[in-house]
């Protein structure tokens, strides 16, 4: 029988003590648990073989928000949108602009249980276009509370911007997908939201020229906070771009009075690659949201989706290698992030693994049928010395191996 992610009802502990008690009971009986928020990223990872599942979705609410200290705390099940709204009311935003991947990797059968949660965004360390300039989701995590695999409540970090006291579990648990501890509350650094956004567009470049223009922008003093290359078919799927060949796009986010100067200087800088046009504030916001959520991929329901992080200058080569394998894609992060879609087959996945490795980078299988996710590595296998550490550190958090077994690596 293929492993199933929808085996039985999901238990929803009402609060942190209840969650801790449930995990402690599971640890005593050695019963594996699948760990979810609202399951909007259920397919991002290997299928978990667990008869029982728990969700943090009842742990909701913003517990601290101090705009003048650039800090917000919320329980793990709080919808990202609720946090974004609270921040917007004070003119601030989430620095890493986490993507909403509900449409890409929600449950294989049926619907998600709600919108993306902040716990899920941190536990998957997913970051949007601004990552290239201002850091990943994990870089914004100042503190957290979690329940480890023994059912103990642990905390790390705090609510201050600078903190080097003790081992930093915040970054290590960010991206660990609930396999080490279940996040119950996170504290994030936030920043003032920029007054205005504008996007510089160059049309018709090939990928190498596009990435070279992005590197020029990112290597300039003009504060580029988004740098993406959309091949023609991807650009055509974004309304404010449309037909007209590939789009090389550079984002500036600043005080409104600074934007004209910055876009002019950037246009001059990349002028060697062709004439640039400027997309206004409203359309820029729509455009970068699309890039953030990978909608320019135009994924059909049966297709597989991958995400690769590579050395930026190797992005065009990786894109070409994947095209030769029948996959299409686009580049963000100045060429360093490659989103790819195509047939959900083993050969396509092997091409992704090879491209990531050849480009000095890593990959995530974002979406594929459960059988494929169970059979093939969903992230790069670790070298033997590191794999040994992984087993020991996993046991240091989760001695009975009950939290999301196999979610990241088979047998762990």
């Amino acid at each position, binding site marked *: 029988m293929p492993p199933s992610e929808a085996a039985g009802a999901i238990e929803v502990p009402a609060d942190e003590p209840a969650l801790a008690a449930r995990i402690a009971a599971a640890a005593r009986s050695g019963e594996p648990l699948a760990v979810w928020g609202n399951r909007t990223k259920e397919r991002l990872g290997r299928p978990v073989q667990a008869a029982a599942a728990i969700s943090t979705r009842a742990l909701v609410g913003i517990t601290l928000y101090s705009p*003048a*200290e650039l*800090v917000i705390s919320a329980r793990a099940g709080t919808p990202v949108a609720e946090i974004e709204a609270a921040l917007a009311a004070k*003119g601030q935003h989430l620095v890493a602009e986490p993507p909403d991947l509900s449409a890409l990797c929600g449950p294989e059968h049926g619907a998600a249980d709600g919108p993306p949660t902040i716990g899920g965004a941190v536990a998957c*360390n997913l*970051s949007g276009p601004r*990552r290239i300039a201002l850091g990943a989701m*994990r870089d914004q995590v100042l503190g957290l509370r979690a329940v480890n695999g023994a059912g103990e*409540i*642990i*905390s790390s970090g*705090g*609510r*201050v*911007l*600078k*903190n*080097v*006291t*003790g*081992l*930093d*579990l915040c*970054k*290590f648990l*960010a*991206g*660990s997908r609930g396999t080490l501890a279940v996040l119950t509350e996170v504290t994030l650094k936030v*920043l*003032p*939201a920029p*007054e205005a956004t504008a996007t510089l567009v160059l049309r018709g470049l090939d990928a190498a020229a596009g990435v070279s223009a992005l*590197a020029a922008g*990112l*290597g300039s003093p003009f504060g580029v906070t988004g740098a993406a290359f959309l091949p023609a078919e991807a650009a055509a799927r974004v309304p404010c771009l449309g037909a007209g060949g590939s789009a090389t796009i550079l984002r500036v986010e600043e*005080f409104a009075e*600074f934007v004209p*100067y910055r876009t002019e200087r950037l246009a001059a800088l990349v002028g060697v690659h062709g004439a640039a046009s400027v997309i206004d504030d409203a359309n820029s916001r729509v455009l970068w949201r699309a890039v953030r959520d990978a909608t320019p991929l135009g994924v059909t329901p049966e297709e597989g989706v991958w995400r690769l*992080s590579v*050395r*930026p*200058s190797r992005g065009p080569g990786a894109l070409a290698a994947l095209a030769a394998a029948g996959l299409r894609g686009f580049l963000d992060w100045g060429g360093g992030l490659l989103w790819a879609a195509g047939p959900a087959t083993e050969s396509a996945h092997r091409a992704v693994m090879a491209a990531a490795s050849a480009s*000095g*980078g*890593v*990959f*995530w299988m974002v979406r594929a049928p459960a059988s494929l996710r169970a059979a093939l590595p969903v*992230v*790069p296998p670790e*070298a033997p*010395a*590191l794999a040994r*550490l*992984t087993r*020991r*550190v996993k046991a*240091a*958090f989760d001695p009975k191996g009950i939290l999301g077994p196999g979610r*990241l*690596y088979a047998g762990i």
Partner: protein
Amino acid sequence: MLAMPEPKPEILARREEIVAALSARVGPANIISETLRLKAYETDGFTAYRRVPLAVVLPETTEQVAAVLKYCHEQGIRVVPRAAGTSLSGGALPLEDAVVIGISRMNRILEIDLADRLARVEAGVTNIAITRAVEGEGFFYAPDPSSQLACMIAGNVAMNSGGAHCLKYGVTANNLLGVTMVTVEGEVITLGGAHLDAAGYDWLGLVTGSEGQLGIITEVTVRILRAAEGARAMLVGFAATDVAAAAVADIIASGIIPVALEFMDRPCIHACEAFAHAGYPLEAEALLIIEVEGSKPEQDALLARLAAIVERHAPTTLRIAQTAEESAAIWKGRKGAFGAVGRISPDYLCMDGTIPPGRLPEAMRRIAALSAQYGLQVANVFHAGDGNLHPLIMFDANDPESFSRAEALGAEILRLCVELGGCLSGEHGVGVEKRDLMTTQFRPADLDQQRRIKTAFDPGWILNPHKVFPLVDA
């Protein structure tokens, strides 16, 4: 005084044999075993504590580091990693029965790639050397601890070093792409690389700031950034600390994130002025140095907005630099602050707690009260935007009673930081200095979790022992 472990007699007795074995692994030119030369390694930037190590090895390659660690692991010999030895928390303090592994001879810049905005360097390259290697092209390496002329990148990674510009550019962890690390078992592992983010577990995030507890870093890849078109500072004096704190809150709430936002109190202003003659206002109770970046018109616009904000708080002084030279003059006093305090007091302890910036007025009042209670002068200089305090406690090292009072006052200040919602260390690390205070910030379950991770990396606890984790039930 902090307790340090008794050396293991069986290790001390084997000294000659151990030195010979180490020498075979790194070559006779890369080992120090004569008492006189070992004395140079007896302490670090936290000079109150000194221990002459068993031996010092200065490997030239990752493979040599691996060979030494493998040997020490097999033999149960304690190891103290060391970079430049500038730690202010005793992070590189040796032990009598420990081998110091110094990476200072691994100091080559291996690769600079401006298009991919990265530098790959050996672990003993100094912080400033990275910026020096790329500044001709307009780039820089962002974290800028005040020891940046001397401190080495491996130490920066181990302590997750910060600096004056963290508010905008982040600390070491936020500017790191990859490291090569040798485990205690002598295995060489690569974490991260030339790409962003880990697909699996974020080992790079765990290792950064782990204070030599998990392994020894031998190679580092950092992000380099293009410098802004220019920067300019303003200096603002206030009649009261509370008023300065309120101005800081208003600045952050306005949507402007200055590249630096530094605070000094009256004792510090006076010490710096006497030392640097920077033209600081001696009548002010508090002073802010605010720096912005951008083109000249952008600087003008930002400084005008900031001036409007601080003017609502009735500043006693408001000086806006018009040129780079005037900016440098404003910074001159601040950059010499530690030296300036050293001039008026024979010795001082530099504290490093962080508080939520909103608690600043209360923190200042209570530090002043503690200072009076202990009869020791305290000068405060800190990074106001991120709440990272550096109270400088003045004492006389020739008077043991004065030193123990200074230590006790420092501990009180750090406990206060935790009580106010902050932490023991913003950028200097725990080391030995704050080791025994860890239980004020962490509950037993939190510390036990950290200890289990340490054990997973270093089952025999031979790496940088008796630091970070409190000795009680260790």
